[in-house]
């Protein structure tokens, strides 16, 4: 349980409590920095050259571009708040705790006695909490943040399990995440334009 995994779990837990969009994006920025730190640490342990390039890429995209895009969106959404999420702040806080325990149980059951047990558990719990965020938040931006947390979790899992995927695939994944966020941001703008609100509970018309 080194400091890094603790901080990561902390950011995930806080994310499930927050309702203001700006603070949420700030937490996401912090989380991305933690991920780059993990990447640097892994690179330093294995001495792989491409890990450093990957770390630089994560900083550029995960900590730079994506938060910048999200801050621009949040700036124009003046009065938007996560008003009535499906699970209230306290309940989702307890839920994320349960998810972390579940993650640890899963790792012990599936890969007993693996070396980087904590990192694995942290990444799996990040994925699960990301999913929890998407499932329970109504705001479009919160759903985007949930999605990116999931991506971070998966990236971390890849890092800790396999000491990093080959560079080409890493590059591809980063590009995809970036484009995904760009697309989602464009859609959020359009949602704001035509629905006057980015609360996705409004999207209920297409049934049957």
């Amino acid at each position, binding site marked *: 349980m080194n400091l890094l995994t603790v901080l990561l779990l902390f950011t995930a837990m806080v994310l499930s409590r927050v309702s203001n969009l700006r603070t949420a994006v700030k937490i996401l920025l912090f989380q991305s920095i933690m991920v780059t730190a993990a990447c640097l640490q892994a690179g330093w342990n294995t001495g792989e050259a491409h890990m450093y390039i990957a770390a630089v890429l994560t900083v550029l995209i995960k900590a730079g571009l994506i938060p910048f895009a999200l801050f621009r969106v949040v700036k124009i959404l003046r009065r938007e708040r996560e008003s009535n999420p499906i699970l209230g702040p306290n309940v989702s806080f307890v839920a994320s705790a349960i998810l972390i325990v579940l993650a640890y149980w899963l790792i012990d059951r599936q890969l007993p006695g693996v070396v980087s047990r904590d990192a694995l558990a942290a990444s799996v719990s990040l994925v699960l909490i990301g999913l929890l965020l998407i499932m329970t938040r109504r705001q479009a931006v919160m759903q985007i943040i949930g999605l990116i947390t999931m991506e971070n979790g*998966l990236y971390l899992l890849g890092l800790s399990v*396999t000491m990093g*995927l*080959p560079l080409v695939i890493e590059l591809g994944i980063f590009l995809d995440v970036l484009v*995904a966020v760009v*697309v989602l941001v464009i859609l959020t703008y359009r949602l704001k334009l035509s629905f006057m609100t980015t609360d996705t509970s409004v999207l209920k018309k*297409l049934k049957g």
Partner: protein
Amino acid sequence: MRELIILALFLPLLTGTVTMLAVKPQAIKIINLIGSFLTSLTLLAIIHQLTVHEVFSAGILYVDYLSAVLLLVVAVLSFTAVLFSTSYMERDLADGHISEPMLARYYGLLNLFIFTMICVLVVGNLGLMWVAIEATTLASALLVAFYFNRSALEAAWKYVMVCTVGICLALLGTIILYYTQLNADGGTQALDWLSLLQISGSLDPSMVKLAFVFIFIGYGTKAGLAPMHTWLPDAHSQAPSPVSGLLSGALLSCAIYAIVRNMIVVQGAVGSQFVHTLLIVFGMASILIAVPFILVQHDVKRLLAYSSVEHIGLITLGFGLGSPLAVYGALLHIVNHAVGKSALFYLAGIITQEYQTKNIVRIRGLMKVSPILGTMFMIAVLAITGSPPFAIFVSKFTLIWAAFLGGSPLLGGSTLLLLSGIFAGMMYYCLRMCFGSAPKKLEFQRVGTAAMVAMAASIVMVIAGGMVLPAWLHTILTQAATIVVGG
């Protein structure tokens, strides 16, 4: 061969960028026509090269008979889609649904979408294939949201969220697969399909099973298999018709292609019993889910979307049965379904433009309004529901015959029953739309020649496919089947 693939990848990008620069709609139209014609030509050249020497693998590029089948689908569909969209968009422009700059954006995105699909088919690395599939989602998301009205936005939002969540699961599966590859031989060729195939025997079975579960559900969401199909009807009904034709014809088939690629590797490691039960269960679930939605439906394009869910279910069932005949039928069904379904979507596009509504209740008397369109629509519906003189019956019958031969007559029988339910639903709505008295105020504008050519070409292909199966297609399909069955 390598230059051909590079050219095939490069051409859509080139046409895309050039369209962005060009301003006049006329110019855009011509550029795209030439561009897509050339891309299809190069794809066909690749397939021709393939029939000469079996496999081509260089670096991350890898093409064999299996991808040849899908390349054929993409080649045919991309050309008919662009051909159709030239006059479809022209009509939209005239009706005022879209403005000038949107036209350029449409063609740019369309070419990007075609580029990503070709990437999926030519790349040999499972990781990169994941990246390409994710890219197709993003490219088509903006196309689904093209009109930027309320329901298009809703469809696009759900499309992106559901598919990205699904794709993350697939990423998880691919990472676990890479982990097993690391344990097996140190992972020099990370996630390269050929090397994975060679060492598939020595992979750790329980981990590979876990990996395949995630991969199957991830790509299954992209392919629209049963419980994960929820995005499909929304996306296909809100997208412009040529795009929904491409979506249901080519994109779903590429997702199936991804599943099959992974299945071959997993099959080597874990044996086919696990894989086949999974495929059969999800295949049957998809057909079962499609029946109620087709029986009671009010939107024409949602009706066609659910018919795509049913056909994808049938294809997965084919792969699930596992015998060479079944896989042959499934691959043939991919090709037939792609051509048939795209023809149907184009027709639906023209009809919705004509009647200015997608609601089946208000579309009546199509035969009176324009006999050619009516007959083509009737032929297309009869074809897609698997009536004999048409191609889809041939592949459907092969699948049923393989099911009976493979020792599961109950499966074959119940599939037939479900298909007849779908036939009843589709015919009911087709008859309501084709016959009866047409609304008075409807003045019928002539259908653009390009659209008519695209539709006529697809329908002629469907009819010809029913009568005779070209020899070269037969060899490609049998070779691809041997690859899948792991000969």
